Each structure stands twice: as structure tokens, then as C-alpha cells.
């Protein structure tokens, strides 16, 4: 029985890219309890939403987070379209699906790189991010922005993607898939990576359900849950089935994300081949309808929830975003209980935290 010590961890920490603060109660080398606190970068974007007109608001909302920027834009415009009863054209929906999957690829690649970095595997980190660059270039080519795409708008998308661009995307995705295969081989089979990930930070299926985990964290614990099944975009037409893992440890979460990467490559290729011709936007004019709309979508990190309430003016009365990390924090605290101090950064990273998202 050792002495209990409290170690403050974050918001500034060499290995932690996110501004979350944890009070770790340590006994010998084991973490007994972790108490999180956030709020270091609270920007009050939900309040800003009330003083911006709804067509311009999408540019604010997609700046909630740099990595899931497309997902935030998509979620917001879908919620407003739901509120106003607007149907977007087929082609716009397919384009959104494609971009959403591309953003999932780049987010998961980023995560793989950061995990390698947390393990101390610098060269793997560099190689992963080198591959990710291809996807960012595709965003630059099609939307004009590498990170903030500003391509969704209420009623469709701002830019069409021409045939030559689609061909280029498909060939780049093919190349990325090839390079990813070599990388994932390292992640899944290298002894040193496995020894850091296997059996660490286990979250059982019961715990995942009890703590309302979402996204890859829940799926790695064997929970059948993926918001792409709820009729958003064109996933239904593309025959989408979620990837469900087992085990619930860090290795399982890594494996689920890698399988999702491969699945996203498939979806992008499929969307490019079945893309119908037609307009990419419908005009949406006039004030918002009075009423409320709540919807969810699957971001790379998990389920995000958007709630909008209109009151007949051009301004939203209330706009609410609930991001995946918000929901995964309780699971993270559970995973940290009983782990070694040295594993703390790895466990925090495997929930793919995005505190900027969480605080909005």
C-alpha cells in the first residue's frame, strides 16, 4: 500500500495535444482516479450563433474544430435543411458523402500519427502524416481549403467536382490505400506497438453501454452503433455496414479505426463511380421557419448531435452542438482507473479527444 499522490496532468503537456486538465490520483505507479476539467478554450460559439444569420453561420460552425470541420458544417446545414424542410439534390448528397469520408480518412490518419507519436515512434508518425497529405491535397483541389473546407451550404454544396477531379481523387485514394497497407501492417503487427496497445485501457461492452460511449470507442467494445445508419447522406444507397471490433482495449480501438479507413476508401471509390449528374444546390431564401430540429451524424470521432431552433427570423434562437468527445470523457475516466502512469497519454489518445470541439 503506497502513498497517494495527486499529479496534475495537462492542459500543457508534451505528449497531449489537447487542453484538458486531469488530476491523477496515483498510488505507486497506478492511477486510482482521474478527475477531468475543461474550459480552457471555451469560446461560446453557441451564443455567437444567435447573432449571425443562418446562411453565414455555417462558416462559424465549421470552425468549431479543424479536424472534423467538414462534419460540423454538414451537421449544421443538415439540421437547418431539416428545420426548413429542404431536400438537397442527389449529386450534392453524394458529394457530401464523399467529402465526409475523405475527412474521416484524414482524421483517422491524423489519429494514427498522433498515437505513434504518443508511443514514442517518431518515424511512424512522420510516415503516417506524409500519407495523410495526399488527402489534404485532394481537399485543396476540390474545395479550396486544406483544413477548413467551407464547401457546405444550406441547400447543397458550394462547388461542383468535375469528372477529371473525380478521376484524380480515385487515383489518389488508390495510392493512399497502397501506402496505408504498409503503415497499418506496422500498427497491427509490430511487437513494440502491440506491447504498448494490447490489454491497455480496457473498456468492456457493459461499461461502454453504461457510460454512453460513442463512435470507434463504443464500436471497439463491441457496441453496434454508427449514426451513418440513420439515413444521413447516401450511406443507405451505398450499402454501408459499421465496423464492430472486440476486446475494447487500445489495440481494438486502433484496429477499428484502421478497418474504418479501408471502408472509407471503398466508400469514396464507390461514390465516385455512382455519382449522378445534376445540380448541386437548391436556392434557400427567406427567414427560418419557427420550430426545432435535432439530428445526429457520425463524425470521425463518433456521434455528434446538432439542435437548432428557429423563430421565424433569419437568426437561430438556439443552436446546440454536442460533440463526440463530450460523450467519451466518462469512458476515458473509467479506462484510466487502474492503468500505469506511463500509459495515461496513450489511453487519452485512443478516445481521439478533441477538447476544442467539446467546448465550442
Amino acid at each position, binding site marked *: 500500500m503506497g502513498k497517494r499522490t495527486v499529479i496534475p496532468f495537462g492542459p500543457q503537456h508534451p505528449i497531449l495535444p489537447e487542453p484538458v486538465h486531469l488530476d491523477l490520483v496515483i498510488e505507486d505507479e497506478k492511477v486510482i482516479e482521474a478527475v477531468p476539467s475543461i*474550459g480552457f478554450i471555451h469560446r461560446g460559439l453557441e451564443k455567437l450563433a444567435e447573432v449571425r444569420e443562418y446562411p453565414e453561420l455555417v462558416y462559424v460552425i465549421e470552425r468549431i474544430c479543424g479536424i472534423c470541420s467538414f462534419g460540423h458544417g454538414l451537421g449544421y446545414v443538415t439540421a437547418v435543411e431539416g428545420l426548413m424542410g429542404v431536400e438537397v439534390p442527389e449529386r450534392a448528397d453524394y458529394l457530401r458523402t464523399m467529402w465526409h469520408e475523405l475527412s474521416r480518412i484524414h482524421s483517422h490518419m491524423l489519429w494514427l500519427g498522433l498515437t505513434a507519436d504518443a508511443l514514442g515512434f517518431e518515424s511512424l508518425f512522420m510516415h503516417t502524416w506524409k500519407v495523410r497529405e495526399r488527402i489534404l491535397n485532394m481537399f485543396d483541389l476540390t474545395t479550396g481549403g486544406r483544413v477548413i473546407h467551407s464547401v457546405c451550404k444550406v441547400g447543397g454544396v458550394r462547388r461542383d467536382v468535375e469528372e477529371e477531379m473525380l478521376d484524380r481523387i480515385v487515383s489518389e485514394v488508390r495510392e493512399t490505400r497502397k501506402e496505408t497497407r504498409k503503415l497499418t501492417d506496422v500498427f497491427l503487427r509490430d511487437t513494440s506497438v502491440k506491447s504498448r496497445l494490447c490489454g491497455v485501457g480496457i473498456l468492456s461492452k457493459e461499461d461502454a453501454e453504461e457510460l454512453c460511449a460513442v463512435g470507434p470507442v463504443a464500436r471497439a467494445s463491441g457496441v453496434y452503433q454508427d449514426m451513418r445508419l440513420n439515413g444521413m447522406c447516401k450511406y443507405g444507397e451505398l450499402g454501408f455496414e459499421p465496423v464492430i471490433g472486440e476486446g475494447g482495449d487500445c489495440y481494438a480501438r486502433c484496429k477499428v479505426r484502421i478497418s474504418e479507413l479501408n471502408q472509407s476508401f471503398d466508400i469514396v471509390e464507390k461514390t465516385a463511380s455512382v455519382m449522378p449528374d445534376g445540380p448541386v444546390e437548391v436556392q434557400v431564401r427567406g427567414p427560418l421557419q419557427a420550430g426545432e430540429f435535432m439530428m445526429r451524424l457520425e463524425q470521425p470521432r463518433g456521434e455528434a448531435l446538432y439542435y437548432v431552433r428557429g423563430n421565424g427570423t433569419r437568426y437561430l434562437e438556439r443552436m446546440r452542438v454536442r460533440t463526440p468527445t463530450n460523450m467519451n470523457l466518462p469512458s476515458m475516466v473509467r479506462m484510466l482507473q487502474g492503468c500505469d502512469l506511463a500509459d495515461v497519454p496513450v489511453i487519452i489518445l485512443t478516445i481521439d479527444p478533441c477538447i476544442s470541439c467539446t467546448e465550442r
Partner: protein
Amino acid sequence: MKCHYRIQNFEEIKAEDLTEIIRGFKTEKYRLCQICASNIEGDTELIYSFDLDHELFNIKATVRNGGGMESITGIYQPASIYESEIHDLFGIEFTGSRPNRGGKFFVLSKPTPWLPENEGGE
């Protein structure tokens, strides 16, 4: 596949019945999605969202601004995040729960900034 995401389920309930209804959700294995607070004409409306097999159910309860509400952390543990957030930003007291870090889950420069009487910049 049927299109769920456009189907909206909102139901208004009395604040006193909240705990009982949420206990019912728990026994039916619903997943808590979020709690959202918003100001409506001097009252604070709380929306509790639940998910079962990718379908969303929302229940609404109204309390007066700065009022009290029964905590549901005993039923759904993750609710503490939302309750702390609403406590710190809207000033609603949740009875029967210990706000994270003594009511300082969010590090703010002034207390309860989203309560209508506290609004407005410096």
C-alpha cells in the same frame, strides 16, 4: 433502410416527473445522448435526449431561470458532464449531485455567463 434522422420526437413533461421517466428509459436500455439547456422567456428549458437503436427521443422539462432541478447522475453517470456544464453556464442547481470540481468544470472569467441577466460583454 428507413430514414430516421428527419423523424423528430419531442415530448414535454413536468419537472417533478423527470426522475421517474428517466428511470424508465434506463430500464429499457436507452442511451443518454445529451442534455441541452436554453433560455425561453425567463425560463430555462432542459432537453434530455435518448437513443435506442439509432432512434432519438427527446423529453423537455422547464424550470425557472436559476432554479433547481433534480440530478439524474444517479441513473445515468455521464449526465454529470452536462449538468456541470449547465450549472456553470446557465446557473441551474442540480440537487443530489456534486458538480465536478466544485462547480468549476468550465474555467470561466465570470459566473453563469449565459443566464439572460448576466449577458452582455464587458
